């Protein structure tokens, strides 16, 4: 009995740990999308975040600096996306793909230039668990929820804060209105351009941090293509999470559960070839997209560029 309980606690803890990249990238995507800026460069931005975060913490010896650098890199990508789509009114999907390419290229170029090609990959220390005083002493729940690394707490708090901001504050309502009907928002004196810039930049920061989580918690080093589609999964997550912070949080738990299960089953061994278990997150995403189709809605102005001088037909 005790053994089962222990393993349940271990699983639950692992699921929370594995949620973080999905939560951060999903909320980042959601935030940009709420003002109509649809980011599709997640995979590239996460790779850059992983690469830059790893490099800076390797060179400086500080994980905090590494995370800050990853966020700064993500913010730059967000800024570029906002500039190209808001000021230059480029096609959001096409410029998003271009940023994805640049991210993929930079993520492998930078380590090669700065560290060079080494036989054994250099390692950085991974993020330690940070038990919350008192709360971590609660039996079972304390171990699951309050004995995690700092980004687990941050990602959950950010999700709740975003929900509160978007649905319980006037500023949040204004932000949402930009993604639904920018013309109406504009006529009410809301600065549409500024809202789009900030949401894209902060969204980019969160996506960059999501990428940095991978070397800093999982591997301790950067490897080419280590994001393994999590950026694309985050887009899917945002869609079937209905662009709502809390639903995205639950959706991320679903992804994390599948990831953990696939990994555990692989270790335990069930006769199922492990390659088929590795397919699970992608196949499950497609199934969920089928199931939730038509039940969720995206911001009405998602992926479009606002031109205040355009005639309203």
């Amino acid at each position, binding site marked *: 009995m005790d053994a089962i309980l222990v393993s349940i606690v271990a699983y639950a803890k692992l699921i929370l740990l594995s949620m973080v990249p999905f939560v951060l990238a999903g909320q980042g995507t959601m935030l940009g999308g709420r003002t109509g800026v649809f980011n*599709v460069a997640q995979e590239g931005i996460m790779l850059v975040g992983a690469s830059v975060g790893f490099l800076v913490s390797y060179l400086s010896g500080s994980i905090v600096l590494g995370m800050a650098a990853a966020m700064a890199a993500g913010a730059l990508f967000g800024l570029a996306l906002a500039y190209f789509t808001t000021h230059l009114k*480029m096609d959001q999907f*096409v410029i998003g793909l271009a940023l994805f*390419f640049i991210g993929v290229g*930079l993520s492998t170029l930078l380590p090669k*230039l700065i560290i060079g090609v080494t036989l054994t990959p250099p390692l950085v220390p991974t993020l330690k668990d940070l038990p919350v005083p008192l709360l971590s002493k609660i039996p079972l729940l304390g171990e699951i929820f309050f004995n995690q690394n700092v980004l687990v707490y941050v990602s959950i708090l950010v999700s709740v804060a975003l929900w509160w901001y978007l649905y319980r504050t006037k500023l949040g309502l204004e932000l949402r209105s930009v993604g639904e009907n920018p013309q109406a928002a504009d006529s009410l004196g809301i600065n549409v351009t500024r809202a789009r810039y900030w949401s894209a930049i902060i969204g980019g920061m969160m996506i960059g941090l999501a990428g940095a989580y991978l070397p800093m918690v999982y591997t301790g080093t950067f490897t080419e293509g280590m994001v393994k*589609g999590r950026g694309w999964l985050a887009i899917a997550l945002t869609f079937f999470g209905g662009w709502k912070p809390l639903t995205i949080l639950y959706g991320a738990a679903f992804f994390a559960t599948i990831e953990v299960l696939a990994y555990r089953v692989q270790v335990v061994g069930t006769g199922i070839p492990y*390659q088929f278990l590795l397919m699970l997150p*992608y196949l499950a995403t*497609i199934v969920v997209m089928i199931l939730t189709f038509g039940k969720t809605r995206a911001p009405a102005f998602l992926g479009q560029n606002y031109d205040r001088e355009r005639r309203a037909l």
Partner: protein
Amino acid sequence: MTAMTAKTTSRSLLGTAIPYLLAILASFAAAGIFIALMGFDVLRAYSTILFTSFRTANGFIQTLLKFVPLLLQALAFTIPLTAGKFNIGGEGQLLAGAIGSTAVGIAFSHLPPALLLPLVILAGVAAGALWGLIPGWLLYRFGINEILTTVLLNFVAFSLVNYVATGPWRDQGAGHPMTVAIGEGGFLPMLINNPPLNAGIIVAIIVAALVYFYTTRTVAGYELVATGANPRAAKTFGIKTRLMFISSLVIAGAVGGLSGALEVAGVQHRLIEGMQSNFLVLGLIIGLIAKGNNLAVPFIAFFISVLEVGASAMQRTLLIPVEMVFIVEALILVFVLLSDVVRRR
């Protein structure tokens, strides 16, 4: 009608070429500053990138070998783009095709070339088409966005390749996951033996010509173009637009599968994990630089092949990472897009 279009094209050819040339110059200049700052010799780097393909026969043939998958991957992207759909699943389709070709090539390895070669190619095309049918059907039946499904299926294909390449057909002698070779009857004939050039290039050029003919000279192709230009209008005029979407993805899958089949039958003669290289992203870059124009695709694909072959040489001789050139290619795309913005104003 067509004659008129041809006339206007030739007149504005210079007008089209200038922004492209400026975009190339601008991205080389931008990357050049970066290369110089890193302490490398910029001029030597650029002469290596641009001229490796033309200095030796081997360099030129390397370029042609690269050109085949890049051209087909770009077409797998631009065909659905004509109908307004985005296929980001080219590498999954390539791998599905490679698995299909390898499976048939190993299972029927004793067959003579006259039978085995067509079977190997057809199996690859069919497997790729099937891989394109999945997102096509999901779009048709449930209205699910094809962008995500095509991408996600790439990752499914990666695992599938690993499964096949480490299964019973595994080449035990190789350290990296790969299968044993297909029967020799499934090898594409050689055009030149030394340096080796297989007949894949002819197939790829014929396919590019067929795609161009299909989209500009046939009714079905015109319906595809009309669907992409204005789906609502196309539907009003009786075009089955949803059927157009699914068929464009299946055709793209077949072309993507063909790129895998040609890699197996022409170059590798087996399934190798990672054989998709970065063909997908390069194909997307080519398709986007060409702005979906199927006539421009082969030329841009050739140019990118030149850069790619030059990039490998540059990494070997000057120790500048190949990714530098990939950034240049992405920048060319960004500058081409910027030139549109400038022209719009």
